[in-house]
């Protein structure tokens, strides 16, 4: 695709101005793209949070009429889609972007322009998914969109159009990003960084990326089939013509279960960085943590039908998937014991990042245990579609993924901005979230086992669920308060935060060896790695008792001539290509002529991209 010819063949001059607001549109710098990902995903996180608060308000007392049943359906559907596809996944990608090149000692990702494309497609896809709100018909069939609820016969308003088109765009973005990180991690490691010397976060990013590029095509096909059913009138999920709604369930969960690990593995990676740093010990059982992660990734492909135990797949299928599901608890348990082993006899520093990491471990154990209870088919028949499931998934996604990602924010914020986040506010933030999250979701275990179905807009007072529902609603306000404290902390620390310096945490990995914020080229000199915990081993040696002794000589990273470092040039084309794609997808809902315009813009973007000169000086070093 990339054909580096002379400048004269370029359609547009390569942009040269990196500063100002315009600079964000043409940037290909992984750190700036990471910041874009981070800001956008936090904004979507707030939107999903507002939806959740509204849901909780509606359920706070029986027979409430704050929102209509229809709006309630749209709210819970969009809450799930927003949190999964627009908040947790892209926030993980923000960390991939910011941290991975720094941890492996690289100057950028393998395909900087593709990286920018991923972001813009994500942004437009998120806007498209949410555009349904503007015309009063957001998707309302639940995030797993079971057929036939999604057919034009039942989704009369047409909200599922936004679901199909939005998720197709978001899937494209995820896959483009994942290909990029696969190549970056395999192919751009600093000399000496073998696979088994890679930081665990890098490892988990690699596993997650492989899950993305294999799972996303399956949901892409499912969405294409659903889209054709809706827009053309095909029969994929039309039972009157012999179509089988259960096929949608299979395709969705073949994607959906790897997706669950796509959501949690990055958080596990972050926690595996934070716990050793603030225990002042190397990660206990590194190879076990890594191989467990790989095994979880693989096993993620073998358990999908446990989401469908009540469909009636027959005893053989149910028994098989029950066994694989129980099996997947083993590597997860291995990880938890290794994290506990890391803490054992460490000199633990209880700062905010560490608190979030510890919160992750505690809450994820609870969520994991309730998850194992679904593996028993008869028990699952009782739990299916009740609030017990809602409790479980929020313990692993909020208590797990979100807590892990918050640990990451507090941990890497100083690296990105050069300033530390406020610890007092941080601890307040942690405790509000920790308490609020337990207040909100713990009672859902009881009301769920008591039979309260999920996705109902109201309930009868005689069911006896009033108290715990009100309790959950109060809890959700505590979470909201925690998030507001977090936002305040971010805004305040950006201006007034204590200056961090290169290495505020006495870190173990390479990103702490360079200035904060890092220069555009990251490393003045590409480091050579001789051990796991590459930066730690430059700072300390162990004496015979295993006590780390600081080395006096600090490695110097200054004084290098950085003028001849070639960084990838800025580019308009990722934005143009993504814009063309967005016009195309919006065009499906408007008119075929708009699709054509979108295709033309996209083709212009792709050809401009392919013929863009590689370097400010054409033909230098490349061909």
């Amino acid at each position, binding site marked *: 695709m990339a054909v580096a010819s002379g400048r004269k063949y370029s359609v547009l001059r390569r942009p040269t101005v990196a500063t100002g607001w315009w600079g964000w549109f043409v940037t290909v710098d992984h750190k700036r793209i990471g910041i874009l990902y981070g800001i956008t995903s936090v904004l979507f996180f707030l939107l999903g949070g507002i939806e959740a608060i509204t849901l909780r308000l509606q359920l706070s007392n029986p027979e409430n009429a704050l929102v209509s049943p229809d709006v309630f359906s749209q709210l819970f559907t969009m809450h799930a889609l927003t949190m999964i596809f627009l908040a947790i996944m892209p926030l993980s990608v923000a960390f991939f972007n910011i941290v991975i090149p720094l941890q492996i000692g690289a100057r950028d990702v393998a395909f900087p322009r593709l990286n920018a494309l991923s972001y813009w497609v994500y942004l437009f896809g998120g806007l498209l998914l949410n555009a349904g709100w503007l015309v009063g018909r957001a998707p309302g069939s639940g995030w797993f969109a079971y057929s036939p609820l999604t057919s034009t016969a039942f989704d009369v308003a047409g909200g599922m159009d936004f679901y199909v088109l939005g998720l197709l765009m978001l899937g494209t973005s995820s896959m483009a990003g994942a290909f990029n990180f696969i190549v970056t991690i*395999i192919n751009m490691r600093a000399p000496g960084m073998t696979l088994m010397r890679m930081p665990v976060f890098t490892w988990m990013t690699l596993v997650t990326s492989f899950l993305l590029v*294999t799972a996303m095509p*399956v949901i892409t096909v499912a969405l294409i089939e659903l889209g054709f059913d809706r827009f053309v009138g095909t029969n994929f999920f039309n039972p009157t013509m012999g179509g*089988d709604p*259960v096929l949608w369930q*299979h395709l969705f969960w*073949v994607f959906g279960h790897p997706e669950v690990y796509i959501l949690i593995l990055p958080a596990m990676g972050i926690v595996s960085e934070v716990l050793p740093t603030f225990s002042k010990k190397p990660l206990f059982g590194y190879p076990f943590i890594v191989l467990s992660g790989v095994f979880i990734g693989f096993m993620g*492909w073998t358990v999908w*039908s446990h989401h469908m135990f009540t469909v*009636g*797949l*027959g005893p*053989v*299928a149910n028994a098989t998937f029950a066994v694989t599901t129980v099996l997947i608890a083993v590597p997860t348990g291995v990880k938890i014991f290794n994290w506990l082993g890391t803490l054992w006899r460490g000199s633990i520093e209880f700062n905010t990042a560490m608190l979030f990491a510890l919160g992750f471990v505690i809450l994820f154990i609870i969520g994991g245990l309730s998850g194992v209870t679904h593996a028993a088919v008869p028990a699952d028949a009782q739990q299916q579609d009740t609030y017990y499931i809602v409790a479980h998934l929020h313990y692993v996604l909020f208590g797990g993924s979100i807590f892990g990602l918050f640990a990451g924010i507090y941990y890497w914020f100083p690296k990105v901005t050069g300033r530390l986040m406020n610890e007092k506010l941080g601890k307040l933030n942690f405790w509000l979230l920790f308490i609020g999250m337990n207040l909100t979701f713990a009672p859902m275990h009881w009301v769920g086992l008591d039979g309260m179905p999920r996705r109902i807009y109201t309930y009868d007072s005689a069911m006896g669920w009033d108290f715990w529902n009100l309790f959950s609603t109060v809890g959700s306000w505590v979470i909201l308060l925690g998030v507001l404290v977090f936002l305040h902390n971010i805004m305040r620390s950006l201006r007034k935060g204590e200056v961090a310096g290169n290495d505020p945490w006495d870190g173990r990995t390479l990103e702490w060896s360079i200035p904060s914020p890092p220069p555009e080229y990251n490393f003045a000199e590409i480091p050579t790695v001789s051990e796991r915990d590459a930066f730690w081993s430059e700072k300390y040696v162990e004496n015979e008792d295993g006590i780390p002794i600081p080395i006096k000589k600090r490695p110097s990273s200054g004084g290098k001539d950085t003028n001849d470092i070639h960084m990838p040039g800025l580019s308009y084309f990722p934005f143009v290509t993504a814009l063309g794609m967005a016009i195309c997808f919006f065009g499906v809902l408007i008119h075929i002529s708009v699709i054509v315009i979108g295709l033309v813009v996209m083709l212009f973007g792709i050809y401009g991209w392919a013929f863009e000169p590689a370097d400010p000086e054409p033909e230098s070093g*490349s*061909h």
Partner: protein
Amino acid sequence: MGAQIHTNKEGHPTPQKYVIIAAILAVITMAEVAIVYFNLATAFLITILIIMTTVKFSMVAMFFMHLKFDNKLFSYLFFGGVVLTIGVILALIAIFKSAGS
């Protein structure tokens, strides 16, 4: 960078060899088409067809796509996807059969 990356040039087949491989592929294709005109038992026919398809698939991947001569990593990336795909298809067929739907 092309020169240093393409280390295996001498291992690549010559155009003559490509033509021979294409001829073999053509013969297998003709055999595939011919065999369906014999009145074979369906299960037997399908088994033979799957074997011949696999041979064709592998020959294109190994020789035309150079996986036989290239770095193993490329084979892992590609055949990882192939194996996963086959696994998912077989599992789905088995589930649909056992559920009788």
